[in-house]
């Protein structure tokens, strides 16, 4: 599949479609079945929480959804593309054009200003300098960090760092934003702010968000919750707000 086909996909169906996905690490006696048989769909504009204890398979699901990993069996269709058939570099292109990541540990480049961090995905997308700057500033505005563009990660608080990370994930207006325990390193007040920000981005901009968390409080911001246990989805709820 060419770079153009990967970067300009118009797809009507679900953004994410898991069809009997299983993931096995190792083989023989040592084999660990991280995902057993998982099927679900996520459509554009949804805000989904993925919950479960550690070892339940939620991180594996996240990695597969983010095109960082591929299923051992079954099919994962991202915007209609069977990810398993793609090469490492092709998956990198999918991530570049359609995916945004927010991590528990913020994962900003150290000793690099907020603005430069935001520019990073735009540089990989080869967006020209002036436009890049405008997009980055707009994203910083959206997360309420205007005037902080020249601060480095070390000069920002945890909550601010996570806002920069969210801005970086959404600066390319991705089809799917994956947030892996985004509030895990933050206090309650800060966590609340981050979740409100995500919920607002979902509502105002129609950003499709998948949130991995093990806290019910945080999951409550989502409109749909998938609960994992031992590699399977054991429970699914939809909030009334949807």
């Amino acid at each position, binding site marked *: 599949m060419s770079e153009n086909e990967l970067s300009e996909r118009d797809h009507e169906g679900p953004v994410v479609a898991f069809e009997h996905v299983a993931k096995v690490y190792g083989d023989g006696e040592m084999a660990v079945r991280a995902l057993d048989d998982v099927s679900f769909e996520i459509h554009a504009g949804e805000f989904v929480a993925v919950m479960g204890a550690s070892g339940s398979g939620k991180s594996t699901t996240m*990695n597969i959804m*983010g095109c*960082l*990993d591929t299923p051992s069996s079954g099919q994962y269709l991202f915007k209609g593309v069977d990810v398993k058939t793609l090469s*490492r*570099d092709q998956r*990198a*292109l*999918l*991530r*570049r*054009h359609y*995916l945004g*990541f927010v*991590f528990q540990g913020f*994962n900003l*480049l*150290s*000793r*690099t200003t907020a603005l*430069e961090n935001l520019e*990073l*995905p735009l*540089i*990989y*997308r*080869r967006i020209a300098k002036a436009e890049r700057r405008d997009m980055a500033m707009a994203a910083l505005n959206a997360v309420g960090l205007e005037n902080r563009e020249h601060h480095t990660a070390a000069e920002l608080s945890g909550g601010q760092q996570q806002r920069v990370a969210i801005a*970086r994930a959404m600066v390319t207006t991705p089809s799917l934003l994956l947030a892996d325990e985004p509030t895990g390193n933050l206090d309650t007040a800060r966590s609340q702010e981050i979740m409100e920000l995500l919920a607002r981005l979902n509502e105002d901009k129609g950003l499709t968000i998948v949130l991995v968390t093990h806290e019910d409080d945080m999951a409550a911001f989502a409109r749909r919750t998938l609960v994992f246990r031992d590699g399977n989805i054991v429970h699914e709820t939809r909030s009334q707000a949807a």
Partner: protein
Amino acid sequence: MIGNILLLSMREIRRNVLRSILTTLGIVIGVAAVIVVVTLGAGTKAQVQEEISKLGSTMLTVFPGQRRRGGAAQTAPPFEIDDVNALRRETTLLSSVAPMSIGRKMIVYGNENRRSQLVGTDREFVNVRNWALTAGRLFSPAEEQSGKSVCIIGLTVRKELFKDEPYLGNVLRIGKASCEVIGLLEPKGQVMFSGDQDDVVVVPIKYYQRRISGNTNVDQIYVSALDDDLVPAAQAEVEMIMRERRPSQPGAEDLFSVRGVQEMSTAFQSSTAVMTAFLSAIAAISLLVGGIGIMNIMLVSVTERTREIGIRMAIGAREKEVLLQFLVEAAMLAGFGGLVGIAIGLGGAMALAPLLNVPFIVQPDMMVMAFVFSALVGVVFGYMPARSAARLDPIDALRHE
């Protein structure tokens, strides 16, 4: 894409200025060493060329040569003054001919003494060597005929023995003999392959033979061609005349040899070529060590930046983009080190040139080569770390603490 990679690499280098500087130190030193060696080498070469013209590019030296007898080489019989006269008589292409007998002797004046070069010759000497007097006079024909004890001295002898005292008319002691100073030669300065030319005492050849060597030998004959272009023809003529006077057995080598100044400089340059090769080898080794230094730091940096590489991959960097970024970083570091090395090398050469008494000659092509080579060192030694960065698994890399 390259523009973007350059931007990313530049930002990465700027993020860690101190480490970047330390990383390139090896390259800086290597390139600086190369530039110093090459610049001073070029200066030396230019100086040698200049001195060749100082010696006189039309000058030829006739040596007695060697005679082979049963495989063992022996010095052929020495020249005598008749050989000089024959050349003077028969030549059509030489402007001047001078006999030369040379030895190092202890020269004494008052309480001062000094080992200097003693030259027995005649008036023609100044023509052959293109050498003028700054004071006094040359030997008169009568003095040459009788081998009178008179001498002409070089500037070094004057300075060392007479200090500021008057020298004309004073008497020098040469071993058991003595001579009256009648002239002073203009200073010629240092020559790379025959030392201080001004450290010389010139006496009539007859005096030299009678009082110093005790024989009638003429060690060498200096001749000068009429013109630069006539040097090969003059050499052939000298060979023809000498062959007649010193017949060797058919098929055997001549019993003399004729050498130009050019040949002497070739001999000198082949010895400097060895020196240059040796220094270049040292420079190459220091560049190699510099390259290993870069590889070392880049490898550490890949480990240290594993998480960052994971972030880049999650954001959508492809393998080749990560690879290129690290390669470009290494090449930029090394190239930057090369530039700094060139600057330091030029500065060093500029400071050393006057101390070593050689001209300072900038070699632009060598500078370009040094820069390209150092960047290349970066690419070569940066490849392995860059590849290991590019092959990281994004999931593992993101989990890296």
